[in-house]
């Protein structure tokens, strides 16, 4: 446990735990509304924020938060108004954001090492002020994803229906997008902007191999998230490999392991269900009754 003796590792681990909790907590709503790749887009846009932070010599984390929040608001507006050409507009936003970031870092005299640390994550660069920012942002993400879980579930499950229950659908969509943007910047330091999206999506995909309910999927996804970010961070310390890549590969390994586990589990559940209903589901066995009605009428 000698890695705990290093202050930079203590900071990196704290950040890793918060990333492990928040990324799947937001990601589950994105997966539910079938926008799994939204996090990837936000990651690209956030790059411009990092570049601006360099150029203006302010905190890249806060600057990236501001720019990615702005970017997601723009993405939501495009989704509302630009129905037909929406995907093209989004593509321009994503790659424009990435290119802008690379350009700004270059203009600001940043090195390619800076760039790589933001794109793929780095342990030694989590500064004490980053930790403060990450804690504040993670608290916001948890407040939204847990406090409004019923509302976000309803809107992500069926937007049209949610509108008729009187929920402020647009405001909730915007809040989901902003929360996802904030999560991207929370995760940026440890996992890196290009790999953030994996941590939002893959733990949820892995958890749902085993689960039947949303609540249980949420809990297992967060557990997988924390397990892979912490173990990935520690591995990265000992093996001197990039943390972002390690974490993402571990997450995918977890997904494959759970998928392999899921097949026998599904078989056992099917057997249990068959045993509970020996006569079969009565709702599926009523064809003779319908025939009878037709015969009486002399068809």
């Amino acid at each position, binding site marked *: 446990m000698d890695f705990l003796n290093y202050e930079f590792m203590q900071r990196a681990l704290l950040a890793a735990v918060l990333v492990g909790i928040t990324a799947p907590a937001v990601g*589950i709503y994105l*997966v*539910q*509304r*079938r926008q*799994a790749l939204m996090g990837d887009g936000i990651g690209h846009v956030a790059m411009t924020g990092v570049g601006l932070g360099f150029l203006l010599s302010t905190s890249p984390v806060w600057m990236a938060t501001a720019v990615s929040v702005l970017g997601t608001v723009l993405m939501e507006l495009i989704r509302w108004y630009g129905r037909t050409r929406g995907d093209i507009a989004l593509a321009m936003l994503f790659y424009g954001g990435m290119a802008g970031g690379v350009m700004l870092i270059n203009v600001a005299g940043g090195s390619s090492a800076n760039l790589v640390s933001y794109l793929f994550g780095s342990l030694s660069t989590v500064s004490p002020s980053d930790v403060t920012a990450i804690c504040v942002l993670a608290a916001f993400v948890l407040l939204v994803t847990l406090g*409004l*879980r*019923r*509302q976000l*579930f*309803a809107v*992500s*499950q*069926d937007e*049209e*229906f*949610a*509108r*008729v*229950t*009187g*929920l402020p659908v647009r405001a909730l969509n915007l809040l989901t997008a902003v929360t996802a943007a904030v999560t991207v910047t929370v995760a940026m330091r440890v996992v890196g902007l290009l790999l953030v999206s994996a941590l939002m999506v893959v733990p*949820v995909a892995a958890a*749902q191999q085993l*689960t*039947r*309910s*949303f*609540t249980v*999927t949420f809990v297992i996804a967060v557990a997988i998230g924390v397990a892979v970010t912490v173990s990935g961070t520690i591995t990265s310390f000992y093996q001197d490999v990039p943390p972002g890549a390690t974490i993402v590969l571990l997450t995918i390994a977890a997904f494959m392991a759970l998928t392999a586990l899921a097949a026998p589990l599904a078989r056992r559940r099917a057997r249990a*269900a068959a045993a509970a209903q020996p006569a079969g*589901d*009565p*709702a*599926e*066995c*009523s*064809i003779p*009754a*319908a025939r009878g*009605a*037709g015969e009486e*009428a002399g*068809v």
Partner: protein
Amino acid sequence: MTSEPVVALRGVTAELGARPVLRGIDLTVGRGEVVALLGANGSGKSTAIRTIIGQVPASGGTVELFGTPRRSFRDWARVGYVPQRTTAAGGVPATVAEIVSSGRLSRTRFGVFRKADREAVRHALELVGLADRAKDSVAALSGGQHQRVLIARALVAEPELLIMDEPMAGVDLASQEVLARTLRQQVEVGTTVLLVLHELGPLEPLIDRAVVLRDGCVLHDGPPPQAVGQHALPGHDHVHPHAPAGAEPIRTGLLS
């Protein structure tokens, strides 16, 4: 029948993209009435329903719910809505109870569930005969059972008005019977029902009035049309709902 109508559409027009879908329709549903909206594919039935709930904006005319213009209507707990869906599932697994619970949000404050809310979920599932499947994933259900989940989700808020878009589409016969029975119980306690149907089918005895649309105009507003010939035979599966080409629709919107 002195009370104001539950649903009132006057001269409503709507477009999808550049295509006019509703060309001035009038539709009123009185308290306790069961009104079926009929018509061929593309006649504007679903769009008419969706202007009522605000999913599609009406470009002209007025839409009122319980006497209040739709834009300022806030009392959504009085409305239960069953959208046209082939599945109740989303991108993440969810149990039957979780899906039905989302329909109860309009009755809660800030989404906090109390004992009465959980009781309402259980009761709604009993109404559609799925109480024993509450903890199952919706992904494990049949098409007809999906539809029953969607109807339980609409009923769980105990609405006064039930709006349903093709509740019988793709539903097996047994589920159709459960749905017809559920609807009958609702009508008996005074719920107002507006539903889009492809054909009257097993719901026919419940329906007070039928409104037939064609090309975005009201063609018929009165007693349900009687099925004739082969269509009248029990068990007839009506699969060719095409309107005759070139028939001139009656533009009732212009008369009012």
